[in-house]
């Protein structure tokens, strides 16, 4: 194995950048689609359940149309997730050669979850006319459960990269592995909960935005109202919980991965009474032009203004992540999170004061459209925070990203091809989803016609 390590170290800096960009690009693309794979089945099944219970045609129509969009998104999510499993080996053989077996368990479990999800998505989408309504509704439940389970399993593997556990190394060779300890590492609880809730927020705000556009265009019928309210309510209920979980995740970093927190907040020197910085640019070891809240970080991280916060200076310069990217990505995520919280409160307030009516202000509806875009942006920002904040490590404290990358040359060519394919894929996905959203309502009033 030693010769391969020399080779692995031989990748040029440009190739490392190309590999990281390709991985980040394809993963960043998949993560948004995957969110819909987690959240959309539950919201669709909710609509179908209400349709069966109340016999309401609007809920039934919505369930049918959401199922169609879900089918497209699931297909795109399945294939855009597949390339990631290829890339794990194609781009990061140095990671997989040593640690593939350590993180294999959650991926094996995810494989089964994905199987169940794919099987029941197939049944759910194609059996409207083959099963009774109640049986059809029930086939949606495994899709919901497996979607959440998939997200959980995959994120445990990412959590392991932040808190690697469950293995013993001897001179770079694994001598013992405890797969369950690796999977249930300390970062697993906060990271998995944070991601699953984020998926419901992306789905709920994203779906609601489609109907907010219709409402802005004056289509104030019940179809648009219900289409907006159902997913928006799910997302708005999740949002305050998510902010609490985010706080938990940040407190987790303070104790378990202090370098990442230091990068998030641009803290150079270890100290007590560390202020919280809003905005600002990290230059020459300090955050400039930032708004300071005295002792804010110490309080947020430990509920104690005198609490000790570890600074970047505790590790050598070549083990520090790039502060500005991490700091700003985190700020973007938090700002969007609180913006979405306010949006939910706005609806709640109007609902109460206007006797079960949403706000009249057009500003509210514009904000709801924006929320459909902002929620996935927040997921991307959060993901950049955790991934870039771990650099230069791919396995924190054990394996550097530069040592895991493939030594194969000219990775920028592969990157260019992947970017072109994804550009076409993005355009086609957006176009197809828009067509589905704009189709006349009558077109879906009945299930798909039975082909002779």
């Amino acid at each position, binding site marked *: 194995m030693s010769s391969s390590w020399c080779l692995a170290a031989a990748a040029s800096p440009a190739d490392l950048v190309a590999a990281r960009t390709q991985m980040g690009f394809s993963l960043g693309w998949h993560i948004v689609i995957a969110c819909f794979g987690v959240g959309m089945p539950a919201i669709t099944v909710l609509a179908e359940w209400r349709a069966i219970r109340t016999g309401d045609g609007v809920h039934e129509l919505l369930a049918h149309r959401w199922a169609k969009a879900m089918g497209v998104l699931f297909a795109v999510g399945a294939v855009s997730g597949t390339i990631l499993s290829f890339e794990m080996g194609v781009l990061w053989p140095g990671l997989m050669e040593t640690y593939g077996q350590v993180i294999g368990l959650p991926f094996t479990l995810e494989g089964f979850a994905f199987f169940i999800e794919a099987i029941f998505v197939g049944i759910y989408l194609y059996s409207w*006319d*083959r099963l009774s309504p109640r049986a059809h509704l029930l086939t949606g439940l495994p899709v919901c459960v497996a979607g959440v389970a998939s997200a959980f399993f995959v994120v445990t593997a990412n959590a392991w990269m932040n808190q690697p556990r469950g293995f013993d190394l001897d001179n770079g060779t694994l001598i013992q592995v405890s797969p369950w300890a690796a999977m249930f590492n300390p970062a697993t609880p906060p990271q998995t909960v944070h991601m699953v809730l984020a998926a419901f927020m992306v789905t709920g705000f994203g779906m609601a935005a489609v109907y907010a556009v219709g409402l802005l265009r004056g289509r104030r019928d019940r179809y648009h109202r219900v289409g907006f309210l159902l997913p928006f309510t799910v997302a708005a209920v999740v949002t305050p919980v998510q902010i609490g979980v985010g706080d938990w995740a940040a407190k987790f970093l303070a104790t378990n991965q202090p370098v990442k927190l230091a990068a998030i907040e641009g803290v150079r020197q270890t100290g007590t009474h560390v202020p919280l910085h809003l905005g600002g640019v990290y230059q020459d070891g300090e955050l400039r032009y930032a708004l300071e809240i005295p002792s804010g970080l110490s309080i947020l991280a430990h509920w104690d203004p005198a609490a000790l916060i570890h600074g970047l200076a505790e590790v050598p310069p070549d083990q520090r992540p790039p502060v500005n990217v991490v700091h700003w990505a985190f700020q973007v995520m938090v700002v969007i999170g609180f913006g979405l919280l306010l949006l939910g409160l706005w609806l709640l307030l109007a609902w109460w004061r206007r006797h079960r009516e949403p706000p009249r202000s057009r500003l509210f509806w514009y904000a709801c459209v924006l929320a459909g875009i902002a929620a996935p942006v927040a997921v991307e920002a959060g993901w950049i925070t955790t991934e870039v904040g771990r650099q230069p490590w791919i396995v924190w404290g054990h394996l550097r990203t530069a040592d895991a990358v493939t030594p194969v040359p000219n990775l920028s060519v592969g990157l260019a091809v992947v970017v072109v394919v994804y550009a076409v*894929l993005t355009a086609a996905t957006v176009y197809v989803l828009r067509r589905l959203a704009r189709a006349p309502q009558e077109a879906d009033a009945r299930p798909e016609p039975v082909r002779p």
Partner: protein
Amino acid sequence: MTAAELLISVMWLGLTAYVLLAGADFGGGCWDLLAGGTRRGAAQRALIEESIGPVWEANHVWLIFVIVLCWTGFPGAFAAVASTMYIPLTLAALGIIARGAAFAFRKATTELVFRRAYGAAFALSSVLTPFFLGTVAGGIASGRVPPGIASGGIVRSWLNPTSLLGGALAVALAAYLAAVYLCQDARRAGSTALAEAFRRRALATAVVTGVLAACGIAILHADAPVLFHGLTGRGLPVVVVSALAGLASLVLLLLRHYLATRVTAAIAVAALLWGWAVAQYPLVLLPDLTIEAAAATPEVLRVTLVVTAVGAVLLVPSLVWLFALFQRPRSAAGERAAQHPGGR
């Protein structure tokens, strides 16, 4: 049988399922490509779409399953294959994206221009993806992926006689399986004309595949001596099973026993895969990486096997239901539901 041998057998079972099920889905795409003009090919395309639609995603998961078991159970071999085969694996991954996305998009689109464009992307990628995966198999089988990260030539590992044979065979086998499966689907849909059309295609691809396999013997003799000796030695009984099952399929097709042909055709293709496995045993990668040497630590093997056994308890009944549901006519309850959606 050791834990490592058991795990690689499970992995190979997964690969067999992928080839027999997803292979046929790719084959359906090949026939979509060759179905002719928009109007002439409409009936064939509709049948292909209806057969693939509910099952292709589940069939596709077998590939993920195989990849994950490979990196869990045999991480060094996985890293060696993935890094050396950077080019064909990237192209296959992009083909998988194009195939799946275009298929879903075509179903959700009504305008003819876009349906044609998505259909072309679906059909072309259905040919290219199995081809590139076949070149990877050929490279491994001919010993061009030595252990170690990117130790093999990144071009000649998959551009060589055995890889080209592997690619061509993969496409031919996919088309063959699809044609055989579609005969029965067409008959169940009540279309004798379509059944006859796919029967002719099945017969033609059976002959093409047989000729390819015969040429393959000469190619392997010259280009992959280790595999050749394995196939003509220890693997010979399995190869004979494949050939006999292939011949039986030919006869059954001529007699129009479509359901029985499905079984014999699947046996013929599966036996090819297992013949390769038997021929190469106990090596994972040539020249000298054995199953035991490539295997993960004992605890990982144990946990993976247990988890797979438990997972199978959930998976198998679900899969059986999926296929049973779409292989039988719509139920009376379903008909009522179709007439009165929403349960009113």
